[in-house]
C-alpha cells in the first residue's frame, strides 16, 4: 500500500508539472536528430550504428532524468518526512521508482521505434530494441536513483551524477546494445534479454536499500 500511495502521489505531481514529462523524450529526439545530421546522407553507416546510438542516447536521457528524482522532495521537505526514524524507506523508494519510470522511461521506450526508423535501423531489430529498452530502462532508473540520492543534498547535480552513474551503467548498455546488434544480424537475442531481466531483478532487490542509506546521508550534508 505504501508503494501504491507513493507512486500515485508522484504520478499526480508529475501530471501537474506535465511540461517536464516531455523533457526526456524531447532530448532523445534532439540527440537522434543531431546524430542523423552529423552523419549526413550516409545511410549505410547510419543503419549500421543505429541500434547502438539509440541505446546510448536513451541511457543518457535516463541519466539526465534521474537528477530530478529526489530534487523536489528534498527541497520541500517531504523527503525528511519519508525518512523519519525506523520507517522502511525501501517501499517508498520502490513506489517512487515505478512512478519515475512511467513518466521518464516509458516514453523513451515508446519513442524508440521512431528513433530507429529515423536512423535507418534494420527493421527486424526494432522489436528487440524496444524489448531491451523496456527491460533495461528500469534498471537504468534504479542505478540512477543511487547516484541521485548520493548527490541530491549537494545542490548541484549534473556532471557529478554523470560521473557516478555512467560507469555503473556499463553492463546494462553492453547487454542492451548487443541485443539489438545481434537481432539486426538475424540471430536470437534471448540470452541478452534474459541477462537484462536478471539485472533488473537484482537492481530492484538491492537498489532500494542503497538508496535508503544514501537518502539518509543526504539529510546531513
Amino acid at each position, binding site marked *: *500500500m*505504501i508503494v501504491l*500511495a*507513493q507512486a500515485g*502521489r508522484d504520478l*499526480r*505531481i508529475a501530471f*501537474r*508539472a506535465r511540461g517536464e514529462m516531455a523533457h526526456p523524450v524531447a532530448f532523445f529526439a534532439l540527440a537522434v536528430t543531431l546524430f542523423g545530421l552529423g552523419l549526413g546522407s550516409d545511410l549505410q553507416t547510419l543503419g549500421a550504428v543505429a541500434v547502438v546510438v539509440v541505446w546510448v542516447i536513451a541511457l543518457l536521457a535516463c541519466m539526465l532524468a534521474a537528477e530530478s528524482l529526489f530534487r*523536489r*522532495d528534498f*527541497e*520541500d*521537505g*517531504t523527503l*525528511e*518526512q*519519508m*525518512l*523519519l*526514524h*525506523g*520507517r522502511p524507506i525501501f517501499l*517508498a523508494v520502490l513506489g517512487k521508482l515505478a512512478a519515475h519510470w512511467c513518466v521518464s522511461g516509458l516514453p523513451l521506450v515508446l519513442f524508440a521505434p521512431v528513433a530507429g526508423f529515423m536512423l535507418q535501423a534494420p527493421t527486424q531489430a526494432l522489436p528487440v530494441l524496444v524489448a531491451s529498452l523496456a527491460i533495461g530502462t528500469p534498471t537504468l532508473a534504479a542505478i540512477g536513483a543511487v547516484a541521485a540520492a548520493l548527490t541530491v543534498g549537494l545542490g548541484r547535480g549534473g556532471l557529478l551524477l554523470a560521473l557516478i552513474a555512467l560507469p555503473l551503467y556499463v553492463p546494462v548498455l553492453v547487454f542492451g546494445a548487443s541485443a539489438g546488434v545481434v537481432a539486426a544480424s538475424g540471430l536470437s537475442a534471448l540470452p541478452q534479454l534474459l541477462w537484462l531481466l536478471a539485472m533488473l531483478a537484482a537492481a530492484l532487490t538491492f537498489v532500494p536499500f542503497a538508496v535508503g542509506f544514501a537518502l*539518509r546521508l543526504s*539529510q*546531513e550534508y
Partner: protein
Amino acid sequence: MSVRDLACAAGGHRLFQGIGFDVRPGELMEVRGPNGSGKTTLLRCIAGLFTEESGHVDVAVEEQPLYLGHKPGLSPLLTPLENLRWYLALRGREPRREDCLAALREVGLNGSRAVLCGSLSAGQQRRAALARLAASSAPLWLLDEPFAALDESGRGIVRSLVRTQCAGGGAVVCATHEDLGVAGAKRLEIAA
C-alpha cells in the same frame, strides 16, 4: 523516550555535548537556547535525520515520531488534502477523506478547496503542515519552532494541539522561544 550523554557536531565543530533527559508519556519538553546552539540538530538527531557523534537516543514507541521542521514537508504541487493523505498512507494508516478534512478544519483550512500548497501564503502553508499534528496518532512529537510564520490564532492552534497531545498521554519535544502554555512543562537549556 530518553537521551543519554548526547553529543553532536556539524561542520567540524561540536554543537553540544553531555545532553541527557527523559520524556515520559504526557510530558512536554521545551528546548531553549540561542540561535545556532543546536536545537534543530538535537531534534533531527532524535528524529533519526542526523547521526550523533556519541551518546544514545532511545525512542521506545511503536509508531515513528512526528517531526515538524523548518521545511514544510508539503509538495507545492499537491493540495493540503492530498499532502495529508499521502503522509498518512506513508505511515501505514488508512487515509480516510473525512478524517483528513476534519484535521484540516481544525487548523483553519478548508480542505475541499482545490488550491495547491504552492499558491498558499506562508502562514497557510504552515497550517497545512500543522494538519499533520491534528491527524496524528504518533505518541511522540518533535516540533521545531512551530510558531514560525503563524498569526495569533495560528499560535493558539499550536498551543491547543500540544495540550491535547499531552492530555492524551502523548509526549512532545519542542524547540521554541515562546511559552507553549502547558502546565508542568520541563525545560532544557542549551548553551551557545
